[in-house]
C-alpha cells in the first residue's frame, strides 16, 4: 500500500514538474502555439491509470500531458514533442495538444472537444470482439460533456456493453465559462441513468479515492457489465491556456482548491502511514531531478528536417 502510494505520488510530482517546465517554456516563448496545463488535476490521471493493466488504453484531451505521462510515456520524448523535436513522441508533427504513445496504450490527445470519446469506445469494441479483456478509458472535461459525441458514444457504449470508462475531469470551467453558465444541470452524473449506466462522483484530488473508483469500474467493464461514467471533481490551478490570467474566478476559489492540492493530500496520506517528511522531500526532489534531466535531454535534440513533413501521411 505505502509503496504503491509512494509510486503514485512520484508520478504526480513528475507531472507537476513537467507542467511547470512547459509553462516556463511557453512564457519564455521557447514554444509557439497553444498549451493547456494539468496542474491540480494530477490525481485524476494518476489515480485512474493506477487501476489499469498493460493492454488497457486511454484517450485524452489537448490538456493531456498528465494522462499520457501517467500511462508511462517517456518524459523526454513528451518534452521533445512539445518542443517540436525530431525525436518527439510524434516526430514534432502533433505538438502539445497531441501527445500520443501507442506503445504504452496512450492512443492520443485530441484537440477537437469530444472527438476522442468514440475512439475509446472503438478500442473497447475491439477488445470485446477479440476477447482480450482490455479496458479503454477516455478522459474529457466538464465542457466536453455538452457536445454531441458524448451523447452518441455513451448511448452506444452502454447498448453494446463495451468495456470503457468515461472519466469527466470536472475542473468547474470550460475555457473561461463556469459550468453553471453552460450546463443546465451541472451534476453530470445525473445523465448516467438516461444511458442505463452507473454514474459515480469522486474527489478528483484524492488519488486513492480516484484509483478505488476506477478499479470498481474497470472490474465491471472486464466482467462484461459495460461502461461507467465517472465524474472526478477537481480544479484547474492555472488558466485555460497560456494566454489566460483566469480573472473570471471568484475570490478565494483558487486558494481553497490549492489547500486541497492533490499532492498535499497524497502526502498527508503517506504521513499517516508513517512516511517521514525527509522521505517525502527526497521523493519530490528526485522527481524534480528526473524531470530536469529529461527536459535537458529533449532540449539537446535536433529539429526535424523540413523534408520530414512529407512523411507519415499515408502508410
Amino acid at each position, binding site marked *: 500500500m505505502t509503496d504503491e502510494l509512494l509510486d503514485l505520488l512520484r508520478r504526480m510530482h513528475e507531472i507537476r514538474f513537467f507542467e511547470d517546465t512547459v509553462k516556463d517554456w511557453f512564457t519564455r516563448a521557447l514554444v509557439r502555439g497553444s498549451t493547456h496545463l494539468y496542474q491540480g488535476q494530477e490525481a485524476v490521471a494518476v489515480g485512474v491509470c493506477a487501476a489499469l493493466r498493460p493492454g488497457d488504453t486511454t484517450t485524452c484531451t489537448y490538456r493531456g500531458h498528465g494522462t499520457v505521462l501517467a500511462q508511462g510515456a517517456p518524459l523526454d520524448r513528451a518534452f521533445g514533442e512539445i518542443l517540436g523535436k525530431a525525436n518527439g513522441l510524434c516526430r514534432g*508533427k502533433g505538438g502539445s495538444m497531441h501527445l500520443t504513445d501507442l506503445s504504452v496504450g496512450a492512443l*492520443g490527445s485530441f484537440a477537437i472537444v469530444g472527438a476522442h470519446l*468514440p475512439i475509446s469506445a472503438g478500442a473497447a469494441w475491439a477488445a470485446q470482439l477479440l476477447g482480450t479483456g482490455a479496458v479503454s478509458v477516455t478522459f474529457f472535461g466538464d465542457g466536453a460533456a455538452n457536445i*454531441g459525441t458524448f451523447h452518441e458514444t455513451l448511448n452506444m457504449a452502454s*447498448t453494446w456493453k463495451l468495456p470503457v470508462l468515461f472519466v469527466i475531469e470536472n475542473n468547474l470551467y470550460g475555457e473561461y465559462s463556469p459550468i453553471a453558465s453552460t450546463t443546465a444541470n451541472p451534476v453530470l452524473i445525473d445523465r448516467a441513468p438516461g444511458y442505463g449506466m452507473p454514474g459515480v462522483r469522486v474527489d478528483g484530488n484524492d488519488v486513492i479515492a480516484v484509483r478505488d473508483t476506477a478499479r470498481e469500474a474497470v472490474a465491471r467493464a472486464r466482467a462484461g457489465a459495460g461502461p461507467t461514467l465517472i465524474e472526478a471533481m477537481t480544479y484547474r490551478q492555472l488558466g485555460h491556456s497560456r494566454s489566460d490570467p483566469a480573472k473570471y474566478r471568484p475570490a478565494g476559489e483558487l486558494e481553497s482548491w490549492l489547500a486541497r492540492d492533490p499532492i498535499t493530500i497524497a502526502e498527508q496520506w503517506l504521513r499517516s502511514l508513517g512516511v517521514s517528511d525527509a522521505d517525502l522531500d527526497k521523493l519530490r526532489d528526485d522527481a524534480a531531478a528526473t524531470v530536469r534531466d529529461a527536459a535537458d535531454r529533449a532540449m539537446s535534440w535536433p529539429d526535424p528536417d523540413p523534408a520530414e513533413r512529407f512523411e507519415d501521411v499515408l502508410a
Partner: protein
Amino acid sequence: MTTVATTVEINYRKAIARALADALATDERVVFLGEDVGAAGGAFKATEGLKERFGDRVRDTPIAEQAIVGTAIGAALMGLRPVAEIMFADFAGVCFDQIVNSLAKYRYTTGGQVSVPVTIRMANGAGAGFGPQHSQQAENWFLNVPGLKIVVPGTVEDLYGLLRSAIRDDDPVLVFEHKNLFGVKGRLPAEPDDAYLVPLGVASVVRPGTDITIVAAQQMRHRALAAAAQLEGDGISAEVIDPRTLVPFDLDTVAESLGRTSRLLVVQEGPPDGGWGATLVARVAAEHFELLDAAPALLAGDRTPVPYATPLEDAWLPDAARIRAEAARIVRY
C-alpha cells in the same frame, strides 16, 4: 485479370454484399458496422445475409454517425479493419469532423505510430428523386483533406474490386457507391478471387479514341460512353477514361491520353467549384499545358442544390446529349 474462374452475373447492389462477404470471409480482422446494416440487411438491401453469416462482426448501430466513425477508428487502432457504412453520403456532414480531423490526420499527427485501415462506404449521387439532402456528390467535400483515399466505382467489377482493395488497404478509404447504379449488372467470380481486386489509384480507359479525351466517373461514365457512341456517328473519336479513384488521382493515364487527343472534357456530377473535375482541369492546365490544343472544359452539375422534381433534377445532371454537344464544340475549337 484472369478469366479462367467461372463467373456469375450480379448487380451493383448485390456486388456490395458480395464484396463485404468475401472480405469478412478472407480476413477475420474485418468487421462491419452501421445503421440497420445487420438484422435489416441495409437500407438499400445491399448488405443482406452478412449478419446471419458473420454474427458479432456485423453490428447494427444507433443513429449516431460520429460514434460510428469514431468507433471504427478506435477499433482500427487495435488491429481490426473496420468497414463503416454511412447510409447516404450526405450524412457525411454529420461525421465530417471524425473523418477529416480524426481519421485523416491520426497517422500524421502521431508521427506515423500506426496506420488506420478504416473503410467508409456511402451512397452518393443524384438522379433518383431523393431531393437536396439525399443526392449530393460528397466525394468532393474531402478533396482538400490529405490523408484520405477516395474511390468512386461505376461498374460491378470496379465496385467489387475497389471495395475489397479499400478494405485491404492500410490507409483510410472513402468508398462512394452511386445510388443510381444499384441496378447496373456485371460479372463476378463464383468464388472469392484476388484476381478481381482493382488497385487503388489506377484509372481505366474504357473506350479508346483519338480526337478527344472524356474523363467521367460513375453515372457520368455511362453517359459519357453513350455520348461517345453518338459522337462516332458524328465522325468524332472520343476516348473515355474512368478515373475510378479520385485520391490518389491517376493523372498519368489522362496525360498519356491527351498526348494522343490534345483535347480534354471532364464530366463531373455535382457543382463545378471545388470538385475533382476542376482539380483535374487545373492540374492538366498547370502540368500539361503544352499537350492542349484547345481550352479544357468541365461539364458539371449546376451551382445549385440538387432539386427534387424530375424535370428539374434531369436538367441539373449532364446527360449524353450535352456531353456530345460539348465534346463536338471542343473538337471543332
